[in-house]
C-alpha cells in the first residue's frame, strides 16, 4: 500500500521534465514544486487520472507563455541594442557617415556592374527553344553558302529546321513621301519565325514570308511608315525599284539579341533580284541557323556536316583529300559573348570583359567591406567599456556577437538604401558608359531583388564578422580597469587591410593608364594612311555609280575639296578576301589574300606610299585594261624577287600586270598583323566615296557635297562620316574599357580614402595624450605630423610593391590582344603609385595636421 501511495503521488515524469526545461528557475524546481503540491491535492480530491490530465494540461498551457516570455526579453534586449546602436550612430556621426557612404559606394558599383553582367548574360535567352538553336559557321568566319541550309535539312537527320538570313544594312525603304534607310533589313527564310520566338501582332508567322514580295515589319518600323493606320496589306518600295507588300507585324525584338530585325523579306527573293545563284556554293554571305532535334547530340551532329555534305561535292569536283573540317556549329546563347568571327552580324561582346568587370565589382565590394572592418575594429576600443559592462551583467559571447553583427547588418541596410538612390542617379551615366539601356527594376527582376537582399546580408555579416568576433572577446577586467589600450595585434591587421585596399586601387589605376596609353598609341601610330580631313560617303544607289565621273568633276569644282576617290573598301578595314594561285607558286596551295578595288586617286588621297614601281596612272593606257598594286607583305609571302610586271588575276577573272608595290599599311585593326593585299584598278566598282577637304569652312563644304549628291540621287537620305571617327569606332570596346576602368578606379580610391581618413582620425584621437606629452617635451609640429602620417604612408608604399607585378602581368595579358602594342613603361607604375600616395597623403595630413597643431594644454586637459 505504501509503495502504491508513493507511486501514484509522482506526477508524469515527461511533463515534469518539460516544465523544468521551460522554466529553469533553480533547476526548474520552484514551479514544479508548486505544481506537484496542487497535483497531489487534486489527486486526493478527484482521483489520480484527473490529476494527471490536469498536470499535462498545465504543461501544454505553459508552453505559449514560455515562448512569449522568451520573446519578451529578446525584444527587451533588442530595444536596448537599437538604442545603443542609435546612440553610437549619433555620437560618432562622422565615423558612421564614412562607414555608410563607403559601403554604399561599394554596393553601388557592385549593383551597376551586376546589372550590366546580368544583361550581357541574358542575350538570346528569351527564345522558347533557345537551347536547341545553333548557328553553322566556317573556320573563323560567320558567313555560310546559300545551298548549305537545304543540304543540312536533307542530309542531317538531327536537324529539325533551318533558316538562312542575310543582312543588308542601309536598305532604302520608301512609302509615299517617307524615305528611310533601314539599318536592320534582313532577307530570311520563312522558318526564321519558327526557330526564333518572335511574337506576331498582325499576320501569321507561318505564312507571312511565303509570298516572294512579302515584307514583315517590326512594330516600331511599321509605326514609322504608317503611323497609327493598319499596316497590313500596304505597299513599301525597297531601293526605289522593288515593291513589297506588308504581310505581318511582329513585336520589337528585345535589345538583348545578337541581331535585331526591323524589316524582313523572303530570302529567296534576294537571289531573284540579284545576279547571285542560290544553288552556288560560292554565294557565301548568309547566316545559317538551325533547330537541333530534341535528343540529338550537337557534337555528333557537327561531325556529320563535312562527310555528309561537303566531301561528296569535293570528290565530285576531283579535289583530293585529306579534307579539313569545313563547318562548325555554335549554340545561339554563346554567340554574344563567345563568338569573335569575321563577318559577325553585330560586333559581339567578350566573356573576358564580363569576367573582368565582375572581378572589379567584387574587388570594390571587398574594399568597401574591408573599410567597414577597419573602421569598426579601430573604434572597437571605444566600445570596450560597453562590452565590459555587458559582460559583467551577464551577457554571453554569443549575445554580443549577435549584437554587433546586428549593428553591421543594420549599417548595411542603411547603405543599401543609400546605394539604391545612388544607382538610380548614376544609371544614366553608366548606361552611356557601357552603351546599354539598363534599368533598376526590382519588381520585374526578381533575381535582382533577391541579389540585393543577399548582398546586404552578406556585406553586413562579412564586414561585421571580424569586429564582432574581436569585440565580443574582450575581457571585462582588462577593459574596465583601463589597462586596455592600443593593441598591436589589432593595428597590424588594420594595416594589412589598408595594404590590400591600396594594392587593389593601384592595380586599377595602372590598368587605366595602360589602356589609355594603348589607345593613344592607336590614335597616333602611323597606320600607313592618313585619317584627317577626309569625309566618307557610303554608296548604295545605282544612280551614283552610273554618274560617278560627273559627280567627281562637280565635287572638285569646290575650292574646299582637294581630292575625291572611290574604292570598294576604306583602308582601315579591308575585309574582302579571296585566295589566289599566284604565278610562280605551287597551284595546289592557294594563298589567302585581301583585295580592294580603287580608282586612280585612291593612293594619293589616303597618303600611301609606293615603294617600288609606280601608282595607277592615266598616262599608261594599259592600266585601263587591268592593273594591280600589291603590298609589301604580299611580295614577301609570294617570295617574288621582282613583282613589277608580273601577271595577276582579280577574283572575277580580270587579268593585268602588277604595276607597283605599296608600302605596308594597317588594313585591319591593330589587333591583327598586316596581311597580304592587292588593289585592283576599277573606277566603276566601289561602295565608298572618300573626299579630302580643307579644314576651313567644313559645314559649307559638307552642304556642298550634300547638294551634289542630292542632285544625282534625290531620294536617298544623305549620310557621311569623318574618316578618323570611323577609324576610332573599331576600338570602341577598348575605349569603353578605359572609361569603365577609370570610373571604377576613382571609386576604389574614394572608398580607400574614406577608410584611411577614418583610421587616421582614430589614431590621432587615440594618441591625443601621447601627442600632448610629446609637444610638452618639445616635439615640433612637423615631427608630430610625420609621426602620425608615416605609419599609413609606409603601407601605401608597400602596396605599390604588391600591386605592380599584378598589374604588369594583367596588362601584358590584355596587350597580347594587339599585334601592335605599347610596352608598359615605368611611368605608368610611378604615376599610379604617386597618385595613390599623394591622395593617401592628403587624406592623412588633414587629421595629422589637426592633431599636430592642437595645443597640448587642450589635449592633456581631459586628464
Amino acid at each position, binding site marked *: 500500500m505504501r509503495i502504491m501511495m508513493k507511486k501514484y503521488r509522482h506526477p508524469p515524469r515527461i511533463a515534469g521534465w518539460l516544465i523544468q526545461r521551460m*522554466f529553469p528557475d533553480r533547476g526548474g524546481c520552484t514551479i514544479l*514544486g508548486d505544481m506537484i*503540491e*496542487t497535483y497531489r491535492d487534486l489527486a486526493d480530491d478527484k482521483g489520480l487520472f484527473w490529476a494527471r490530465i490536469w498536470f499535462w494540461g498545465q504543461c501544454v498551457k505553459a508552453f505559449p507563455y514560455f515562448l512569449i516570455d522568451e520573446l519578451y526579453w529578446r525584444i527587451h534586449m533588442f530595444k536596448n541594442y537599437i538604442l545603443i546602436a542609435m546612440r553610437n550612430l549619433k555620437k560618432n556621426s562622422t565615423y558612421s557617415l564614412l562607414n555608410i557612404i563607403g559601403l554604399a559606394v561599394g554596393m553601388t558599383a557592385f549593383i551597376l556592374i551586376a546589372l550590366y553582367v546580368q544583361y550581357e548574360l541574358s542575350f538570346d535567352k528569351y527564345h522558347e527553344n533557345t537551347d536547341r538553336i545553333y548557328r553553322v559557321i566556317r573556320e573563323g568566319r560567320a558567313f555560310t553558302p546559300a545551298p548549305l541550309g537545304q543540304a543540312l535539312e536533307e542530309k542531317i537527320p538531327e536537324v529539325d529546321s533551318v533558316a538562312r538570313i542575310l543582312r543588308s544594312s542601309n536598305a532604302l525603304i520608301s512609302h509615299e513621301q517617307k524615305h528611310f534607310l533601314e539599318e536592320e533589313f534582313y532577307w530570311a527564310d520563312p522558318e526564321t519565325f519558327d526557330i526564333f520566338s518572335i511574337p506576331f501582332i498582325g499576320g501569321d508567322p507561318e505564312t507571312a514570308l511565303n509570298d516572294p514580295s512579302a515584307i514583315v515589319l517590326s512594330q516600331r518600323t511599321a509605326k514609322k511608315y504608317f503611323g497609327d493606320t493598319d499596316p497590313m496589306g500596304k505597299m513599301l518600295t525597297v531601293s526605289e525599284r522593288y515593291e513589297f507588300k506588308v504581310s505581318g507585324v511582329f513585336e520589337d525584338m528585345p535589345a538583348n539579341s545578337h541581331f535585331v530585325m526591323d524589316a524582313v523579306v523572303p530570302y529567296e527573293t534576294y537571289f531573284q533580284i540579284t545576279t547571285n545563284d542560290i544553288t552556288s556554293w560560292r554565294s557565301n554571305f548568309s547566316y545559317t541557323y538551325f533547330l537541333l532535334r530534341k535528343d540529338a547530340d550537337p557534337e555528333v551532329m557537327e561531325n556529320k556536316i563535312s562527310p555528309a555534305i561537303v566531301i561528296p561535292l569535293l570528290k565530285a569536283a576531283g579535289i583530293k583529300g585529306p579534307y579539313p573540317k569545313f563547318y562548325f556549329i555554335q549554340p545561339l546563347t554563346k554567340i554574344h559573348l563567345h563568338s569573335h568571327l569575321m563577318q559577325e552580324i553585330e560586333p559581339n561582346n567578350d566573356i573576358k570583359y564580363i569576367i573582368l568587370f565582375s572581378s572589379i565589382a567584387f574587388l570594390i565590394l571587398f574594399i568597401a567591406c574591408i573599410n567597414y572592418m577597419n573602421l569598426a575594429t579601430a573604434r572597437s576600443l571605444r566600445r570596450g567599456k560597453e562590452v565590459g559592462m555587458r559582460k559583467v551583467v551577464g551577457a554571453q559571447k554569443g549575445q554580443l556577437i549577435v549584437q554587433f553583427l546586428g549593428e553591421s547588418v543594420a549599417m548595411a541596410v542603411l547603405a543599401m538604401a543609400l546605394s539604391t538612390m545612388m544607382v538610380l542617379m548614376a544609371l544614366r551615366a553608366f548606361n552611356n558608359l557601357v552603351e546599354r539601356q539598363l534599368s533598376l527594376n526590382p519588381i520585374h527582376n526578381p533575381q535582382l531583388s533577391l541579389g540585393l537582399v543577399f548582398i546586404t546580408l552578406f556585406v553586413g555579416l562579412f564586414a561585421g564578422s571580424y569586429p564582432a568576433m574581436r569585440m565580443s572577446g574582450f575581457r571585462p577586467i582588462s577593459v574596465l580597469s583601463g589597462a586596455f589600450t592600443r593593441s598591436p595585434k589589432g593595428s597590424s591587421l588594420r594595416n594589412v587591410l589598408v595594404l590590400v585596399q591600396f594594392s587593389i586601387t593601384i592595380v586599377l589605376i595602372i590598368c587605366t593608364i595602360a589602356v589609355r596609353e594603348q589607345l593613344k598609341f592607336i590614335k597616333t601610330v602611323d597606320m600607313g594612311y592618313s585619317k584627317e580631313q577626309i569625309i566618307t560617303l557610303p554608296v548604295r544607289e545605282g544612280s551614283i555609280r552610273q554618274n560617278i565621273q560627273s559627280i567627281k568633276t562637280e565635287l572638285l569644282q569646290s575650292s574646299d575639296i582637294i581630292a575625291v576617290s572611290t574604292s570598294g573598301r576604306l583602308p582601315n578595314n579591308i575585309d574582302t578576301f579571296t585566295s589566289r594561285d599566284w604565278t610562280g607558286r605551287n597551284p595546289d596551295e592557294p594563298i589567302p589574300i585581301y583585295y580592294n578595288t580603287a580608282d586612280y586617286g585612291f593612293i594619293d588621297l589616303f597618303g600611301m606610299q609606293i615603294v617600288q614601281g609606280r601608282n595607277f596612272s592615266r598616262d599608261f593606257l594599259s592600266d585601263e585594261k587591268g592593273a594591280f598594286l600589291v603590298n609589301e607583305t604580299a611580295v614577301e609571302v609570294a617570295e617574288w624577287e621582282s613583282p613589277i610586271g608580273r601577271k595577276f588575276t582579280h577574283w572575277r577573272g580580270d587579268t593585268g600586270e602588277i604595276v607597283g608595290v605599296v608600302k605596308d599599311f594597317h588594313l585591319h585593326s591593330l589587333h591583327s598583323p598586316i596581311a597580304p593585299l592587292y588593289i585592283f584598278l576599277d573606277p566603276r566598282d566601289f561602295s565608298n566615296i572618300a573626299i579630302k577637304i580643307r579644314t576651313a569652312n567644313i559645314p559649307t563644304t559638307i552642304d556642298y557635297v550634300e547638294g551634289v549628291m542630292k542632285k544625282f540621287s534625290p531620294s536617298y537620305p544623305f549620310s557621311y562620316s569623318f574618316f578618323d571617327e570611323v577609324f576610332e569606332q573599331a576600338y570602341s570596346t577598348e575605349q569603353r574599357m578605359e572609361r569603365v576602368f577609370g570610373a571604377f578606379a576613382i571609386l576604389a580610391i574614394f572608398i580607400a580614402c574614406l577608410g584611411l581618413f577614418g583610421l587616421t582620425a582614430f589614431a590621432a584621437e587615440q594618441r591625443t595624450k601621447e601627442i600632448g606629452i610629446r609637444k610638452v617635451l618639445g616635439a615640433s609640429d612637423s615631427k608630430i605630423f610625420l609621426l602620425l602620417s608615416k605609419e599609413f604612408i609606409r603601407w601605401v608604399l608597400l602596396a605599390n610593391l604588391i600591386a605592380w607585378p599584378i598589374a604588369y602581368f594583367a596588362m601584358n595579358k590584355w596587350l597580347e590582344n594587339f599585334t601592335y602594342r605599347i610596352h608598359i613603361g615605368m611611368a605608368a607604375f610611378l604615376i599610379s603609385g604617386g597618385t595613390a600616395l599623394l591622395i593617401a597623403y592628403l587624406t592623412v595630413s588633414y587629421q595629422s595636421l589637426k592633431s599636430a597643431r592642437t595645443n597640448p594644454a587642450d589635449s592633456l586637459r581631459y586628464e
Partner: protein
Amino acid sequence: MNTKFISRSEEFLLLAVWRLKENAYGVTIRNQIKEATGKTWSYGALFVMLCRLEKKGYLTSHFADPSSQRGGKSKRIFQLSPQGIKALKEVRKAQESVWLGIEELSVPQE
C-alpha cells in the same frame, strides 16, 4: 510620472502577494487570485508574470526550505518591494480619480 502603469493582471498579482503576507508562493497566489477574481490561471502564466514582476523590481523573492509535500522542491516566497507598493498606490489613485463621481454604470436613457 513617465513610467507606465502596471497592467491589470500585474495589479491582481501584486495585491494577492500583499494579502498573503509571508505565505505568498505559487500555489497560494494562484488560489488567492481564483478566490478574488474567479479565474483560474495556469502555472505557466503565473510563473512568467511573477518572474517578470520580480525582474522589473516590484517583487522580491527568497527560497524557503524544501518540503516533502512538494516532492522535495523548495517554495519560492514572494514579497512586495517598496517599488511594488508605490506602483500599486499609483494605480489605485488613478483608478479612483477615473471612477470618481460615477455612482452606477448604466446605459444612458434617451
